[in-house]
């Protein structure tokens, strides 16, 4: 696959040098540097080959700005990095939003954080930030905003039409689970357009990462996705370990898998309860909390926290697991297996629930690719893509599990995929428990001050919500030069306006719920 893409991409671009890189070190197979015209050609080429645009990252190297485009594939592991150098005084690049829909928001983000102008982008207004910010926050040197830029960025104003009115779904609204605001343009009960407004929980984690060492940043990732905190923690430590070449003991790897999967179940359980509450049934919420409590108790005993875990350390774990943990996990597996039947009876077989979710928010495979959705949303659409299988970290490569997929891509499929995923997570935990080796849980000789070699890395982990991509640029110091978090909910929310259009308000709530969004993760 890699060879074929290299040859064909070389032919499509003509004359551009395409380098093969060491995947284990870099997280991508091919890289090339393009000019604006070549970038568009490359994007069209990848679009035709059925690739998706995983992330766009901007890095400020002082002498120049670099845009990094990561293209990846759902069916085979083949990642390509395409870079584009920009003049820092007047950065401008062509937009890819006409080819890949997911570029639409990534480019808006880069516009407000770096000041890069994307030619032909339909709506370059504030996504996270708001008026009153004078400089581009992620630039290495202070670059002030010109007045016309401020005006252009703050241009979003909802306008009421003759027969339409606006409803603000959020920021304080029961169904947005956090502080997401969606400006809905309504015609009666029907939605004409939906415009998410982000940034109510924006904390600039990416800038924070540049100002503290890798170790000091350890507690931050779990604050992004507080429901799948273990996966974010895992993503951060495995990325840094990969960058520094630290080998982790087997026991630690196995425990990492168990802890992450327990956390995944707890995240999916909370989703189940919250989703049913969105649809008007309040009882399942308390049923799932009953189950979640068991997971929290088990994890609390070894990690010391119940929600924002910081359990994994570079080279291993903070704390070894004991017999009580293993017994508690086994008891939980036993209990949970018996609960699926109950949930199926209470929820999955309910006529009202089926009528509310079947055929609602249908995501076709092609649209899923264009928007680069991931996780259960992607699998619900029928694409069997799981980072635990595609790019296994920790001990996932030794686990045998299947990937549940949906057939229609509607909200009901998302429900079924998530419920079945809880079952596969139980399988994985059982296997990991069975093969849990004895030994140390911390690698020897992990330096106190981590100074990774110069270079970059795109590292991915499967969180409960999908593909978490971490792009790290290291300059040999103990703090990252740039750390970009490509978070799954960001792409998953991006598809929402298209799904909501023309639907009833009640359906919009059902669709928003089926995407399983965690807002602090989107806002970072």
């Amino acid at each position, binding site marked *: 696959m890699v060879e074929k893409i290299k040859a064909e991409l070389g032919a499509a671009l003509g004359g551009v040098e395409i380098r093969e890189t060491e995947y284990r070190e870099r997280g991508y197979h091919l890289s090339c540097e393009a000019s604006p015209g070549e970038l568009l050609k490359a994007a069209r080429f990848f679009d035709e080959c059925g690739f998706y645009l995983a992330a766009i990252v901007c890095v400020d190297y002082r002498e120049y700005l670099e845009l990094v485009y990561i293209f990846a594939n759902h069916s085979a592991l083949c990642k390509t990095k395409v870079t584009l150098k920009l003049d820092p005084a007047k950065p401008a690049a062509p937009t890819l939003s006409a080819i890949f829909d997911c570029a639409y928001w990534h480019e808006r983000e880069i516009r407000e954080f770096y000041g890069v102008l994307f030619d032909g982008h339909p709506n370059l207004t504030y996504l996270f930030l708001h008026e009153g910010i004078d400089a581009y926050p992620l630039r290495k040197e202070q670059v002030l905003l010109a007045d016309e830029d401020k005006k252009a960025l703050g241009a979003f104003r909802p306008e009421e039409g003759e027969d339409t009115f606006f409803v603000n779904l959020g920021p304080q*609204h029961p*169904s947005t689970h956090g502080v997401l605001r969606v400006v809905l343009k309504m015609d009666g*009960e029907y939605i004409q357009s939906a415009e998410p407004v982000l940034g109510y929980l924006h904390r600039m984690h990416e800038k924070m990462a540049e100002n503290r060492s890798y170790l000091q940043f350890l507690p931050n990732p779990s604050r992004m996705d507080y429901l799948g905190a273990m996966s974010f923690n895992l993503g951060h430590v495995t990325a840094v370990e990969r960058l520094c070449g630290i080998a982790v003991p087997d026991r630690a790897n196995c425990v990492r898998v168990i802890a992450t999967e327990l956390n995944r179940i707890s995240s999916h359980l909370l989703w189940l309860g919250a989703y049913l509450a*969105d649809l*008007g049934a309040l009882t399942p919420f308390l*049923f799932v909390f009953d189950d979640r409590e068991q997971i929290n108790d088990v994890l609390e005993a070894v990690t010391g926290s119940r929600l924002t875990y910081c359990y994994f350390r570079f080279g291993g774990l903070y704390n070894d697991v004991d017999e009580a943990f293993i017994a508690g996990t086994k008891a939980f597996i036993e209990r949970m297996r018996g609960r699926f039947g109950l949930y199926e009876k209470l929820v999955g077989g309910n006529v009202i629930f089926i009528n509310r979710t079947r055929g609602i928010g249908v995501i076709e495979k092609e649209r899923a690719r264009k928007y680069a959705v991931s996780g259960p949303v992607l699998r619900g659409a029928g694409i069997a893509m799981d980072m635990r299988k595609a790019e296994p970290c920790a001990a996932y490569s030794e686990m045998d599990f299947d990937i549940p997929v949906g057939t229609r891509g509607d909200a009901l499929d998302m429900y079924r995929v998530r419920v079945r995923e809880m079952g596969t997570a139980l399988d994985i935990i059982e296997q990991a428990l069975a093969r849990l080796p004895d030994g140390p849980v911390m690698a020897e000789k992990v330096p106190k001050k981590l100074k990774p070699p110069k270079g970059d890395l795109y590292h991915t982990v499967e969180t409960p919500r999908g593909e978490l991509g971490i792009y790290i640029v290291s300059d040999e110091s103990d703090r990252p030069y740039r750390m970009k978090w490509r978070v799954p909910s960001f792409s998953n929310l991006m598809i929402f306006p298209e799904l909501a259009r023309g639907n009833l308000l*009640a359906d919009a*709530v059902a669709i928003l719920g089926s995407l399983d969004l965690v807002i602090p993760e989107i806002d970072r």
Partner: protein
Amino acid sequence: MEKIISIMGWETVKTIVGLVGVLIFVVFNALILTWAERKVAGHMQRRIGPKEVGPFGLIQPIADAIKLLGKEILTPREVDRPLYWLAPVLIFVPVLVSFVVIPFDASLQVRDMNAGILVILAFSSLSVLSILMAGWGSNNKYALIGAIRSVAQNIAYEIPLLLALLPVIMMANSFSLKAIVEAQQGLWFVVCQPIAFFIYFIAAVAETNRTPFDLPEAESELVAGYHTEYSGMRFALFFLAEYTNIFIVSAIAVTFFLGGYQGPFLPGIVWFLLKSYCLVFVIIWLRWTYPRVRFDQLLNLSWKALIPLAFINLLVTGGLLKL
């Protein structure tokens, strides 16, 4: 006392005393039902519900009522004041009037009118007016959408409600609720009219805006629907009206289908309340079990399923009675 009776006439005094009694009952009923709802919900959700205030938390509703009474009466700036103020008061009128004709026992009824059921149906249609007033007067989009939904829902479900009651009226040959109860000596109408009872019960749940038909106040979509902007005692009045409505629809179901106050051994009033609260329990049970239907599904259910079914039922009943 005798002087008052001689001046005003026995009937008037009886009505006034009855109304006061009804008022006390309404408040008492709402207190019991808020407690019951929380307790039932608690046990259905693997909790225990209120337990701190009084034995089994029985005093909890009174504590809540005192809290609500103590709250500042807020009026948002942009509201339509007359409508905003009147709506919570007006929602209470039909509720009180409906109680006047319900026979709690053979001799315990404020007034036995020969068009009793028509009074209840006519006045219960009025409650939708105050919901509309609340939604429109609040000057809030969520409230307005909630009110519009409520109007459409009430119109759609009043028809099957009436159509389900008609066969019983035909069988009892009277509009008087007391006569209908008396006609059920020996055999309850639910036995000969199971379809009508079924239709009536679904329509009644929809009329009272309860889950799975709680669209006017769907909290995940419309925050709180038509009473989003209300707080304190005004909110409590909406609350009171909702719980009283639940009791009224259950009481009508008992009167029409379940033999009213009739039953062996125990006094009539005990039987009546027992049967009514059993139905109330079922309505609460539904709320804590089902998700909410969507608006178009709700209307489809009424217009495409319940109304045709009720018509067929009515025709069959009429035909059989004629034979």
